[in-house]
């Protein structure tokens, strides 16, 4: 096997906001990339290749923006690669970047993902430029309704997730929403957007970017700050539609998790994994992914939420960063999950740090809940001993 160990030695992100009026598109990606380089104690010249990810180009109205962004990302005379796998793209951008190191192609790789949603309108783009766009919430609400009926979960589970993630976000200096005074009642009383999803159970629309620096084993060991080690990666897809498809519990979600667990040697995810960043753009996706990724038994995911297990001080913290519910620069949202997992095992997550996190997973999903990207990161190459 040619697979080489990969270390994450630099992580950067922007301050996410509804509108970053102070920067151009280049300025936005640059801010995240610059922070990642500083974290890695590197300069532009140290980077061998750049991978850029973002969701549809229709969001900003710039086709293949990586061409224009080559200069801002120091990619001139280097390889520049562009990934687009729908909502999972941020995750895929991290995975593709890590593969450039694990394959031995490059020693130091910069992965950057972004979205500047304020330049355009995602609903417009998702509606194909036509009226009556159902948007992402409209597409996922039926799946959520089916989950609630199937699991028998009480209706307040979604509200609890919305509160928990926003309280976590309030501890994250980079988060878009910092709703320290959010309550269950406020969520419940917020306008109904896509029945059963209330406004406060939905992700915001954000401008933001995230960047990660990967290097090889020697680079990881020589890093000035603790590295995170990439233990396993997976990207799994299934069709968005076929007669009888179970979109609530997608087989690709199971396959993705199974591959990660097998590679790392995880036999009891709930016990062995210290924390998780899951792509939860709508509150109910927390229990749904806990089940589809086999962390909770079928029909039991909501009980983890209800018991407080997924809170920052619970036994299985989920979305310590505040998650997609607190910041949603779409193309970057997946890489933000992946980066937060790495921050946790590096012990650098400050106010949203889970004590003693040595093994974390991160996940992103896209399109009709059909594309999944996931990785596991550790504080060492063998955190399970």
């Amino acid at each position, binding site marked *: 096997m040619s697979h080489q160990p990969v270390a994450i030695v630099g992580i950067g992100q922007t301050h996410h906001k509804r509108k970053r009026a102070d920067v151009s598109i280049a300025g936005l990606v640059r801010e995240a990339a610059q922070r990642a380089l500083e974290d890695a104690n590197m300069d532009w010249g140290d980077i061998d290749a750049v991978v850029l990810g973002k969701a549809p180009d229709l969001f900003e109205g710039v086709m293949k923006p990586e061409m224009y962004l080559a200069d801002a990302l120091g990619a001139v005379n280097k390889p520049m690669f562009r990934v687009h796998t729908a909502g999972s793209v941020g995750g895929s951008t991290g995975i593709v970047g890590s593969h450039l190191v694990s394959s031995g192609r490059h020693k130091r790789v910069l992965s950057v993902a972004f979205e500047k949603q304020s330049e355009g309108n995602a609903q417009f783009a998702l509606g194909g430029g036509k009226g009556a766009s159902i948007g992402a919430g409209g597409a996922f609400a039926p799946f959520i309704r089916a989950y609630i009926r199937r699991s028998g979960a009480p209706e307040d589970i979604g509200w609890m997730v919305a509160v928990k993630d926003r309280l976590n976000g309030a501890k994250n200096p980079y988060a878009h929403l910092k709703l320290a005074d959010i309550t269950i009642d406020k969520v419940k009383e917020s306008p109904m957007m896509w029945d059963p999803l209330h406004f406060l159970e939905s992700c915001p629309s954000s401008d933001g970017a995230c960047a990660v620096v990967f290097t090889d084993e020697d680079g990881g060991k020589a890093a000035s700050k603790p590295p995170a080690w990439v233990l396993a990666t997976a990207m799994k897809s299934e069709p968005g539609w*076929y007669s009888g498809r179970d979109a609530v519990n997608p087989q690709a979600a199971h396959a993705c998790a199974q591959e990660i667990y097998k590679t790392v040697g995880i036999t009891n995810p709930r016990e062995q994994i210290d924390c998780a960043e899951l792509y939860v753009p709508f509150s109910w996706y927390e229990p749904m992914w806990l089940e589809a990724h086999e962390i909770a038994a079928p029909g039991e995911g909501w009980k983890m939420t209800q018991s407080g297990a997924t809170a920052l001080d619970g036994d299985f913290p989920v979305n310590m960063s505040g998650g997609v519910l607190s910041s949603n620069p779409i193309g970057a949202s997946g890489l933000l999950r992946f980066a937060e997992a790495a921050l946790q095992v590096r012990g650098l997550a400050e106010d949203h740090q889970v004590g003693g996190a040595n093994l974390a997973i991160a996940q992103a999903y896209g399109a009709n809940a059909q594309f999944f990207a996931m990785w596991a990161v550790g504080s060492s190459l063998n955190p399970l001993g």
Partner: protein
Amino acid sequence: MAPTENDIAIVGFAQTSPDRRTQLTEADLVLHATRAVIADTGLDKSEIGFTVSGSCDYLSGQAFSFVQNTDAYGMVPAINESHVEMDGAWALYEAYVRLLQGDIDVAMAVGVGKNSNSDPSTLYTIEFDPYYLTPLGTDTWSLAALQARALLDSGKATERDFADVVVRNRANAKSNPYAQIKGDYSADELLAADYVRNPLRRHDLPPTTDQAAAIILARGKRAYDFCERPAWITGIDHRIEAHLPTVRKDITTSVSTRLAAQGAGVGKGPIEVAEVHAPFSFQELIVAESLGLDASTEINPSGGALATHAVMVAGIIRMGEAANQIIKNGKNRTLAHSTSGPCLQQNLVCVMEGDQ
């Protein structure tokens, strides 16, 4: 040769008919290309360890247009899958890197583009610097023409040289059943046409094509399961340069092509055949020079991008054509090139060799 487990080869290639205007959707085109290459190699789809495609949302004006294309893979049970907003040549690059992870031994790369839905004289205005170029309606033809004018003024080529490139490619295309524009022309008759963008005439510009192509890659000894004489990838690299042609030092050469050629080891031996992705006639001259090729290399026996040009597909077709020179035509060392962006901003070079 006795391949190591890190040696990766192209073992199968298929493309759909290059139509000026197909009735089919991009998903239909992907289905046809992938079914063909799977049938040709005798694979079962369950044997493919990774599938990756290259396409472009803005070709159809729809966000997530690639999502429906994945219906063509039959992803039950779930598969390892990815997508790049780049030519399929870069999808192949991702497949190559994915194979190097060592856990799978067969991968499929796809490129697809239904180009006829949009107007190339307006669409690509949004591919350029959004602050300085797009508001002027700066179009891809004009940018190419500015580069062509610079090449003429440098004294490195003449308009007749441009026409000669077209004459040769269209003549080569006659023997390619997958070429759209083909036939015998003279430089004199081509040079009698009006300029579309001085100094470029219609024949100097790429045709508009709807097409898909798919390639199967295999790792190590597995390659011989599908192919008697695999096209081993001995070098592959890609580079980008500054976006604005106005800040590049010299647009009559291609620095990124030269760097990618070095990275791919082009100069380590003679190249018998090069399939060059030059959407504009004169760019073939710039790329050939930047690749370091000499007169001993046959360029574009397929007719190249001047014969058939589906954006997002033309590059991966170069990979397939160069591989077929080894797989089917007895050549020993060939090269494929792909480009993207204004005035050859980004370039990929792949060198392949056959068993001796």
